[in-house]
């Protein structure tokens, strides 16, 4: 069976279903018997959700104003 260190290094990949069949099975086999790594796996799942649920960055008013000015300058190139 793979070690805790190996299992932990594969957890995000395991949760994202990125591992090939053998690696996936080895992590699954390890998680079936290792309670500590189950905690790690649960936390890795929470971290993924935490990362993906970040609020979308907003367009600040000053940047918007500069980008609109940039668009105007592009349009003026044709006139």
């Amino acid at each position, binding site marked *: 069976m793979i070690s805790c*260190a190996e299992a*932990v*290094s594969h957890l*995000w*990949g395991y949760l*994202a279903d*990125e591992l090939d069949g053998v690696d996936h099975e080895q992590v699954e086999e390890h998680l079936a018997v290792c309670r500590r790594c189950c*905690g*790690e796996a649960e*936390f*890795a799942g*929470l*971290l*993924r959700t*935490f*990362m*993906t*649920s*970040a*609020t*979308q*960055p*907003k*367009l600040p008013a000053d*940047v*918007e104003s*500069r*980008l*609109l000015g*940039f*668009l*105007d300058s*592009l*349009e003026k*190139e*044709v*006139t």
Partner: protein
Amino acid sequence: MSEEAGTRFTTVAREQLPWLYSLARRLVGADAEDAVQECLTRAYRGFSGLRDEQAAPAWFRQILLNCVRERYRKQINRPREEPEDPLPDYSLFRKIADVDPWPYSDSVHLDFLATFDKADVWDVLDRINPKYRVPLVLVHMEGLSTSQVARMFSVAQGTVLSWLHRGRKLFERELWDYATEHNLLKTSKGDRQ
């Protein structure tokens, strides 16, 4: 480009600006404004290629991704000049359990994540080398597959998997460092909400 086409381009491009900037900010952090300007310039030059304006979001998105790819391709493919900081088995889960910032809590890992504001995630991601941040954002936030990212940067899929692995470990470590530097570990659950 005719004057009429120029005006149409401006109208279409203005509608894309908020989400285009948002995507650029996620991918390239502080360089977002430059990346959007570059994207607008390329889109302007190729506007005659956009036949259906309904497809404008996907078209602009692809142009922005191309700009990001070119911006980082050299950096990503550059051989390492100095050995990278080793992150062999970093585990934020273990770090939180070992330090145990809230000894009376029975959900210390959840409490740790609850101390962050949702916008803090971007500040944490900004601390990660673009070589690892860009693939992380593309896969986990933009929904690209690892094989799409591999094609985008002309590398093997295994290389993308190793970038992702390192990027995730860096994200874990930077979360901890950010929390420490911003005194979040002294914050009670919900204080920042």
